[in-house]
């Protein structure tokens, strides 16, 4: 995964994605239905409350990589506004991958939370 090296984000209140989480987010987004690249980036933005933004320079390589790994599949379809767009759909193996990613993420959050929470407790009078 390519990490964006841009230092100044156009939206100050947005944060960069944590490395390794983009694949999971894409797969999670596709759980809710087939979607094209633009749709995926919009979905991640709205769902995160306008906080997470996906760099296109990361999104498309990620999509193509996921497709190559067989976790998503793509086909050309028409949008509601009658435009041709490439739609991605999650595959059964993709779903398995998502489950394992999710599990690992959960562990990570708990572990980090435990450390950070412990520090906070210690610091309180």
């Amino acid at each position, binding site marked *: 995964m390519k990490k964006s090296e841009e230092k100044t984000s156009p939206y100050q209140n947005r944060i960069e994605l944590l490395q390794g989480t983009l694949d999971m987010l894409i797969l999670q987004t596709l759980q809710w239905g087939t979607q094209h690249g633009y749709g995926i980036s919009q979905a991640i933005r709205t769902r995160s409350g306008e906080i997470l933004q996906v760099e296109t320079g990361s999104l498309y390589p990620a999509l193509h990589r996921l497709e190559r790994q067989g976790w998503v599949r793509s086909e050309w379809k028409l949008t509601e506004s009658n435009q041709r767009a*490439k739609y991605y759909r999650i595959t059964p193996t993709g779903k398995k991958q998502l489950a394992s990613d999710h599990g690992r993420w959960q562990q990570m959050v708990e572990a980090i939370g435990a450390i950070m929470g412990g520090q906070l407790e210690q610091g309180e009078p």
Partner: protein
Amino acid sequence: MIWWRIFARRRADLDEEIEAHLRMAVRDRVERGESREQARAAVAKEFGNVPLVKDVTRATWGWESLERMAQDLKYAFRRLIKSPGFTIAAVATLALGIGANTAIFELLDAVLLQSLPVKNPQQLAQVRVVDMDKARGGVFSGYPVVTNLIWEKMREDHQGFSAIAAWRDTQFSRDSGGDARFVNGLWVSGDFFKVLGVSAIQGRVFTADDDRRGCGLPGAVISYGFWQQEFGGAPALGRKLILNDKPVEVIGVTPASFFGVDVGHSFDVAVPVCSQPFLERRNLLDSSTKWWLSVIGRLDPAWSVQLVAAHLGTTSPGIFESTLRPEYPVESVRDYLAMKLTAEPSAAGVSMLRDTYSDPLKFLLGISALVLLITCANLASLMLARTSAREREMAVRLAIGSGRSRLIWQVLSESLMLSLAGASGGAVLARVLSRGLVTYLNAKDNPVALDFKLDWRLFAFLLAASAVACLLFGLAPALRASRTAPGAVMKSGGHGMTADRGRLGLRGVLVVSQMALSLVLLFSALLFTQSLRNLLTEDPGFHTDGVLIAGLDFTRLQIPPERRGAFQRELLDRMRAIPGVDSAADTNVVPLSGVGWGNTVWIDGHDSTQRENSNFSAVSQDYFKTLSIPILAGRDFNNRDTPQSPRVAIVNEALIKKLGLGPNPIGMRFRREATPSSPEEVNEIVGVVIDTKYRSIRRSAGADCLSRLVTGQGRGELNACPRPVEIADGCN
């Protein structure tokens, strides 16, 4: 190129995908109330560098290196197109280098490397008489030969060989309705095709049953080439051929790949050995003095060639003893009984071409390899000069982050393209050159048919040659170019760094090696020219300019023996009457043709044990005049020399010395041993000529050359040889 199309489609796909993304983003913003221009600018800013996004996306396909290679090749191609002078020079140099190499290799391959197109050729061995010089009588080929009697003995008992066969190439006159021509014939024993493992593609080949004494003419097996040429590939089985005025039925056709066992000469028609007396006037089957059959056998798996050779050595006395006939010259019987047979490997067939040309061909290949090396050095310095001119460009590329390997690959791809172009040019050139070489080897009556094929070996050779060339002249400049420190080049203010001391190293090495190689080449060329000059100026003792040789076969005219002399005399007289013909003569041995006739001679009155070998030619009046051979003493033959008059002979100086005849040999007599066709006879010397070359220009001048007259009386010898009588007439 399928993958390339897939790749192009995927690229277009990606372009469209991103296009759609941008359109949708703009649309969303416009719907939210932004102006179209604002929306576009914002989207562009948000999306970032479009080509970069495409690049990194494509990188995930895993085709990056391929894509890069294609880019480099395209770039190299553009650069080469931009400097046509350099490109043409480089490609032409390379094409010449590779072309010459390949042409020689093709020839070498056809003559030396290719095995016979038969089954398991490495099991084949040929049988040879160890000391053939002692053999008396007629030797019909330059190849190892035995008499039919010896062959039949070997056929009876061929221990060590699982099967054994005999063959002889010959010529048949062939009547094809109107014009008579010669076809290349082959006498073969019944098992010939079985031994070689060649089966017919149509009809059948001979079996042992076809080859029995008194068989008449049971049929003919024709070659694929002859089938195509004569019958246009139409069904040939059962069709009649007229060979030497005898009709024969075609019973089979051999595969296209089979040319016989004599590399360089293909055959048209094969007939069984037993039909020889039927097709030719003279019966060779029961003679112990007609050496005409070559024997080839397939080794028994349990035996090696050495074992077979040793075995033949022990059985030889028996074989020779049982094949001796009373006709054999009495003086030579002891030599005959002492002769030995041996065996030698024959996997690649037998070939005069190979014997004659293998060393020159190897030498030529070495020379052209040197030329290729020089070619490479040349190209390397050309490339080097070119790369030097590009140093600034390289420096800039390095400065903005181009990888070293990428730069090397770019320069390499340029040389790769050059060598590919050179190799294809070379392939075309090689075809032309090898044809030319064969034409050079070709003689009219002796067409050289070589099996040139663009097989994998040749292709591998070509490819290897060009790959080596490519590496040699591409890598060095590429490495050098990438080693340049960008800053240094920039600072040098536009001047290349080639003048630098440190850089002289590579160029110096190139120049020195070029010089060294060129010197070697120059010396070899000088040596080569020297020996060529030697051969050209080698005095055969006669003048070949303006001499025309015609081979005639009188058999069809059915002239009775007593009329033949007169007929030949008349023929010569009519030839002399043709405007432009200075003189004409006939001989049964054309000098330097490889044909020879030898007998022993001794001084009349001396003991026959003091005899010497001598070459003989039966020639007519004017033979010496026609070939401009000076008569040193005495006279030429004339019309008063007839079969009834005492036998006369003209001898050369070497024979006089050999027999010790003294300063004035005219009028002296010598005896010639008895031969199967004539008794011992006395000859009177009537003339002396200078020494001339007899069988080959390479052998030392006929140390014992003697020309004996039969002055156009057409005695036995003239028509006796299976080859047509040769007539030499000088035209100016």
